[in-house]
Structures are given as structure tokens and as C-alpha cells.
């Protein structure tokens, strides 16, 4: 059931990315997709254990898988720098076109 939630979130972002003609909204759609994949990844590997931090006074605790969290952290940082670069390009584009609508900018139409 949980997974269907992430799936619908993913498809929501996908629709948003494909059908929105505004550059900023387009990238928000992408962010939703990325977030849904990461949520799915993290939640799927959560086996009901504790956060993956070892406590010296409580040995033998059941810990969750730390690897997906590390990967998700990396993916978040990468996505963040990508988005920053994208927004920079949109700012630059606003010097030439006073619109952020894909259809109104000739070079972006297809």
C-alpha cells in the first residue's frame, strides 16, 4: 500500500514534468519524482529497526540498513546542485526572454 503511494507520487511528478509548460513548474515536477524515488528507497529498506547509529552501551541492537541512507544523501546533494544549475540557467534566460514558458521561447519548443 505504501508503495502505491510512492508510485502515484512518482507518476504525479512525471505528469507535472511532461505537461507543464513553465520551466520552474517543470523542475518542481522533477523534484517530486526524485523525492518519491528516494522515499521509496528509504522506506523499503526500513525493517523496523533503529537508526543506523551504534550505541556503545547498547550492543546488539537491530539497526536499519545504512547504505540506502548514504546513497540517498548523495543523490539529494547531486539533485540539489543540478537544480541550482538549472535555476541559474533560467535566471540567465530571463535576460533574453521575459517569460519562463516553454512554448513562448522558440528554442525550447520541441
Amino acid at each position: 500500500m505504501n508503495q502505491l503511494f510512492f508510485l502515484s507520487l512518482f507518476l504525479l511528478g512525471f505528469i507535472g514534468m511532461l505537461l507543464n509548460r513553465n520551466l520552474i513548474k517543470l523542475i518542481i515536477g522533477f523534484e517530486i519524482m526524485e523525492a518519491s524515488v528516494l522515499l521509496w528507497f528509504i522506506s523499503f529498506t526500513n525493517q523496523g529497526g533503529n537508526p543506523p547509529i551504534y550505541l556503545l552501551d547498547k550492543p546488539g541492537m537491530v539497526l536499519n540498513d545504512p547504505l540506502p541512507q548514504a546513497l540517498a544523501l548523495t543523490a539529494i546533494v547531486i539533485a540539489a546542485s543540478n537544480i541550482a544549475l538549472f535555476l541559474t540557467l533560467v535566471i540567465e534566460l530571463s535576460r533574453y526572454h521575459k517569460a519562463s514558458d516553454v512554448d513562448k521561447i522558440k528554442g525550447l519548443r520541441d
Partner: protein
Amino acid sequence: MRLSFLLPLLIVLPLLTAFLIPLIDILAIALRKILVIISISLELVFSLSLLFYFSPLGKEKLPISYYLGGWEPPLGISLSLNHLGLIFSMLVSVSLFLITLYSLEYIEHHEGKYYVLLFVVLGAMQGVVLTNDLFNLYVFIELLTVASTPLVAFDRTSSAIEAGIKYIVYGLLGGLFFFIGIVLIYLSLGTLSLAEIALSFSSLPIPFQETVLIFFIISLTIKLGIFPFHFWLAKAHSSAPAPISALLSGVMLKLYLCVFLRLFWVVLDFPLMEASWLKSFVLYLALGSSLLGHLFAFQEEDLKRLLAFSSVGHIGIIVAVLLVNTPEALYGGMLHIINHLIMKSALFLDSGYFLQFTKSHLIKDLKGVFHYNRYLFASFVIVVLAMIGIPPLNGFFSKWYMLLAFVEEGIHLGGIVVILGSLLAIPYYFRVISYGISPCEEKPVVSLSQDPPPASLMIFTILALVVLTVVTGIFYFCLNPILDGAVQELLPLQIYPPFPGGS
């Protein structure tokens, strides 16, 4: 094991240079050029020494690997080098060396940031070739996207910015699909090391395997610019500065082909892909994309867009011939990867030199531009002939092997596309040449009597690439030991008939 310390060095040296350049910019700006030249030469030396040691002269045995941090593969990240990696690592080093030399005279503003990004791209490329870990591969692919987007938009004209936006959106989508593939593999197999995935991937149920394959295929078709996603490619490759066009069209597409080869042949289950509808689907898609690329190039008015669409055509045919998956096909495909890299880089760099003198990139504005430098004009003609496939030059041999491979496997459409591609290339390249040599009536931007700006390094790079074109054409069989090794790595362990060209 003795040489394996070179593997992390090949990645870390460019990154270190990239980190040092901003510091040098602040402290002593004059030293930057020296640092750039030293670093890129060292990279070339390392790469060539690897080539020497693993050639028949050096008597070292491939593959070698290096465990980063001392952790063995399931625990940590490892780098490894096999014949395939050796080819691509060497190609990246050589072409980046030439492109950097060219840039030293071509780039005129924001040089500091330009070289930072160029070296990050170099490090990321070596990382993509050498890494042996799926997630690390993703990180390096994203690094390529992030570092090359500002380079695409480097001129900051309206069209360059639009190209950058397109490039990064498609890059992000491709990266996301790649990431979904990684997540699926990790959730089902619990490992990220390529070697372990290769061992256990075929134990998964077949529909699941196909799903994973589909996600990776979508991702790589976006990155390679195959048919439904080819629009970004022409725009991005034509709006960038000339060295970056050569980098994107010549080198980066080949790098994604390397990822394609490693993922689908070595890691994921190729027999499964061959058995299902996926293989023939991608094959015919790539053939269609190739034909479409040549047709678009045929009706294109802009020189750089023409070259970019021609890249679409060549990449399509390479993907198709690799998917045929016979030794001849893989041999031909890899030979064409090397040749297309040399030819396309030469064409982009050459046209970059001439387009400095014209007011736009349109072919009709090229009138008389070839009179600025007759030698470079001759080199342009030679490379164009190689591109079309005139016998003693390198394009002929790879196209010939691709043709043979298609015909032997009974995929006649493939053979037709190879020939049609060459036939279509004749008029569109000769249109460029005829405009270029026709005497100009209007006054050009820089008058002919005035000396063209000094560009000895640029001319040297272009001539070096042209010499490579001729040499790899006549002595293409010198590459056979490495190419055969790479082909052997890609094939399942069976006895195959002897290779074309002898081994």
C-alpha cells in the same frame, strides 16, 4: 598489481587540478596555463604508459584492479581496468589533451572556470571508464552532466542558454531513470558492485530483469540521443564553443557507449536481452535514428547543427551494430567508435577555426572562408572524405566491417542504412566545401588581406587529429590486439570464428 596505483591517479589528478585552479587564479594568474599544460600532459603520459605496459611490448596482463580505501568489492568501491577500459581511457586522455591545447587559444573569457569545468569533466570521464561500482558510476555520470552544462551554455547567448536548459533537463531525466535502475538492483540483490551483480543478476525472475533493463535502456537512449530523444543533442552540440562541441559530440557520446557496452554486455544479462523483444526493438530504433540523423543533417542550414545531426546518425549506427553481437560486429562497432571520435573532433575543431571569421554558423555565410588557411582547408577535406568512407582513410574500414557484420547476420536494413548514410553524407559535406571555396563577393568580417589571428596551437591540434585520421586508416590493424581483447571480454566464453583483420 604493480601498476594499479595509476588507476585512482588518473581520476584524482584532474580533480586535484580542478581544485587548484581557483587557488592559482587568486594567487598568481600567470601560472594557470602552466598548471593546465603540465597536468593534462601528465594525464596523457599516465594513460599512454598504461597502454605501453599492456601492449604486446610491455608484457603486463590485464585486467588489474584497485581497492579504494583497501575495502574489497562488496564492501567498498573498486576501480578496474580491462581492455575495453584501456581503449576508452586512452581515447579520453588523448582527445582531452588535444581539446585542452585547442582551448588555450580559443577560449577568451572566464578561462579559469572553463578549465576547472574541463578538468572535472576529464576526471569524471576517467571515473566512468574505470569504476567498478554501480552507484559510483551514477555519481560520475551526474558529475559529467553538472560539469558539462555550464560549458554548453558557456557563450551565454540566448541560444546557448536554451541549449543548456535542454541539456540539463534531459540529463536529469536520464540520471533519474539510471537511479531507479540502481534502486531496483539494490533492492533485489543487495549489492552495488558490478562484478557481484553480473554473477547474480540472472537469478532474478525474467519480467523483473526486463524491467531493470528497460530503465537502463531509457536512461542511455536519452544520454546517447537516440531517436525519440535526439532533439536536445543537436541544439546542445551546436550552441557550445567549438572545443566543447568536439568534447560532447566526439568524446562524451562515446563514453556513454562505453557505459552501454559495460552495462548490457558484462553486467546485466545479455542473453536475456537477446532473447526478448528488447534487443531487436533497440536495434531497429537505433537504425531509424541513424537514418533520421543523416536526413536531418541533409536538410540543415547551420554547419554545427549539421555536424551534430551527423553524430546522431553515426551513434545510431554504432549502437545498432553493437547490438548485432557477433565478433565482427563488435569489432566494427568499436573501430568506428575510435574513428568517429577522431573524425568528429577534427571536424568540430576545424569548423571552429573557420567559424571565427564568419558572421553566423549558416552554411551560406561560409563563402570564401576556406581561403584563410589552405592547409586547414585541405585537412577539412581529408576528414570529410574519411567521414564519407573513401578507402585509404579510417572511416572506410570501420564502415566496411559494420556493413559486413550486418549482411552476415541477415539484417539487410542495417547494411542499407550504412550505405545510405555515406551517400547522404556526400552532398551535405560537399555543399559546405563548395560554399567554403567559392570566392567571396561581400566583404568578410576579417578581410582576407589582414593576417588571421595567430593560432599555432589550434592548427597543431587539428593537424594532429588529421594525421591520426590517416594513420588509423592505413594502420588500423595495429589496434587489433587491444580491440580483440575487448571483443573477447564482451563475448560469452565460446569459440568464435577468427576475427576480421586477423589477430
